[in-house]
């Protein structure tokens, strides 16, 4: 089934790569790097809807000590006036080509995404260029305060837990900077500070432009002719952030406890390690995919947690996070705050069992197939396909298609998974949100 998707790969100038004939249109993916520093990538599935993303190395890890929460406000400023055009005009034109604008931020990246019908691709690209360089006028920044407060109110507990996990794992390092700004920054962010951060980070050599279902030549033409992204390099190199491990918790009003237990993983610059971490997280397991499913989910940690839960409700998901140079792998649990302690201990028991005896035979095969499936399903969504590609380009300069990652996963051995699991349990971090009174600390596990 995988062989039906033929990927032909070429780098900037080479055009005539051989394609085998197939009744399914072949996928073409290309990567270029321009002299201005912009990385350009494209994947052409011959689909009718194009997806574009401009990604900057401007995530929360680049915030200075006095700039906490700046990236969250910058993300909210996407969609406002640019230097030459009013935001209202740009948004209306986006709507008129049937497009949607999204802006998101991770610890490494600030992403601005737009999609449109394929024949409107040139307009969508120029709109995206304008959106990706907001003028950050003081009155626009003030107008965004309400939407910022609304976004805080709508924060997922999972996201809050993962931020706490990063604070626990990286302490004062750059990867601990939260992508969710604290409430006290509402109305207090100086537009000058925002503009300075944007001028430092939203520059050509920190940019990747990725398109799905678009001609590579169109992206190259746009990247060469555009005059919105200023030339230059970011003012500082990526601040290193070693894994330390520990605890961070935040109590809140819910009776549930959301707990993330994780250890050191790998970053996107290690392509083989990413494949191993995918298999590891599939071996850790997940809860059932559907409601009321009689199937309780695969995975060693899932098994031990469900046994400890004894038919009480518990939510389990693996944590599989890869930033550009570091990552986290582990498990996320949600349950009643009063019952969470035994589930956490069972989860850590499962992780230690993974580390000591590894996975082999059927369990390894199931984990590998599940990991492949997850990667391929994620690659079917053009939004995540484009943003994953941009993240890979900015992390390592090259990118793998989902098919290539699935092939790498098929090569993973039980030994690799065991090594990754041992690294995981050697120093654990615990991030807890909600009813945290019964959540044990990392050194008690």
């Amino acid at each position: 089934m995988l062989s039906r998707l033929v990927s032909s790969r070429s780098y900037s100038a080479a055009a005539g790569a051989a394609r085998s004939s197939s009744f399914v249109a072949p996928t073409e993916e290309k990567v270029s790097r321009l002299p201005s520093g912009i990385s350009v990538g494209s994947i052409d599935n011959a689909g009718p809807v194009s997806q574009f993303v401009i990604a900057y190395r401007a995530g929360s890890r680049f915030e200075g000590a006095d700039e906490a929460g700046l990236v969250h406000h910058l993300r909210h400023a996407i969609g406002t006036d640019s230097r030459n055009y009013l935001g209202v005009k740009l948004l209306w034109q986006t709507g008129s080509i049937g497009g949607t604008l999204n802006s998101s931020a991770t610890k490494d990246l600030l992403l601005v995404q737009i999609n449109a019908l394929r024949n409107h691709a040139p307009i969508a690209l120029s709109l995206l260029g304008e959106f990706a360089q907001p003028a950050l006028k003081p009155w626009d920044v003030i107008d965004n305060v309400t939407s910022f407060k609304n976004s805080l109110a709508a924060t997922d507990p999972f996201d809050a837990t993962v931020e706490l996990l990063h604070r626990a794992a990286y302490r004062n390092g750059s990867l601990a900077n939260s992508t969710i700004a604290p409430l006290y920054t509402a109305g207090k962010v100086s537009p000058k500070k925002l503009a300075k951060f944007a001028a430092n980070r939203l520059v050509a050599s920190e940019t990747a432009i990725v398109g799905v279902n678009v001609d590579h030549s169109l992206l190259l033409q746009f990247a060469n002719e555009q005059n919105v992204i200023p030339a230059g390099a970011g003012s500082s190199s990526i601040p290193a952030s070693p894994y330390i491990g520990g605890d961070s918790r935040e109590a809140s009003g819910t009776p549930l406890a959301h707990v993330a237990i994780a250890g050191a993983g790998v970053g996107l610059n290690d392509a083989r390690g990413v494949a191993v971490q995918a298999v590891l997280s599939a071996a850790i397991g997940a809860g059932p995919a559907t409601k009321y499913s009689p199937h309780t989910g695969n995975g060693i940690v899932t098994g031990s947690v469900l046994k400890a839960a004894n038919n009480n409700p518990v939510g389990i998901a693996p944590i599989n996070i890869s930033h550009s140079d570091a990552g986290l792998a582990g498990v996320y649990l949600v349950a009643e705050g009063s019952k969470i302690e035994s589930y956490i201990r069972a989860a850590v028991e499962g992780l230690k069992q993974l580390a000591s005896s590894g996975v082999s035979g059927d369990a390894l095969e199931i984990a590998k197939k599940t990991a492949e499936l997850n990667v391929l399903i994620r690659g079917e969504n053009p939004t995540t396909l484009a943003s994953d590609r941009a993240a890979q380009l900015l992390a390592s300069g090259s990118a793998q298609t989902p098919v290539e990652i699935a092939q790498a996963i098929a090569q993973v051995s039980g030994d690799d998974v065991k090594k990754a699991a041992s690294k995981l349990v050697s120093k654990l971090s615990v991030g807890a949100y909600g009813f945290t009174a019964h959540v044990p600390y990392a050194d008690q596990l």
Partner: protein
Amino acid sequence: MSWSVLPAGAKNVKFAYNNSAFKYLRYVSWNYFWGGREYGLLWHDQYFEPAPEVTEALRRLNLKEPWLFDQRKIRLSRAHTLAMHNETLPKQEWTKWEDETFYLKPYLDEIEAEKTERVKSSGLIPGFLLKKSAGDGH
């Protein structure tokens, strides 16, 4: 000739009509057809503040260039004190054409562009143009 040269402080200001006839008219109106010079005011000090566009332009001026807003406040305060005492400044201290900066023009132009853009697109009225009812709190 001083009428054809825009004052140095206004060199970034764009006027819609800027040929020689309009420059001359602008100069003559500024010198003879308003009374602000003798109170030390600039042209944009006299704009009708309760108008929604002017209120919004002044708010933006305060956010982006607060020192200009402060200088405007000082000029207006001095002018009002003079007017209360039925005095004017001595002739040497009247505002000169070279000191004129049409400081509100960029903001007013942007507000007009936003209004046109809203009409051409969604038709939604921006907040500063909505009528305010009692007890709004803002």
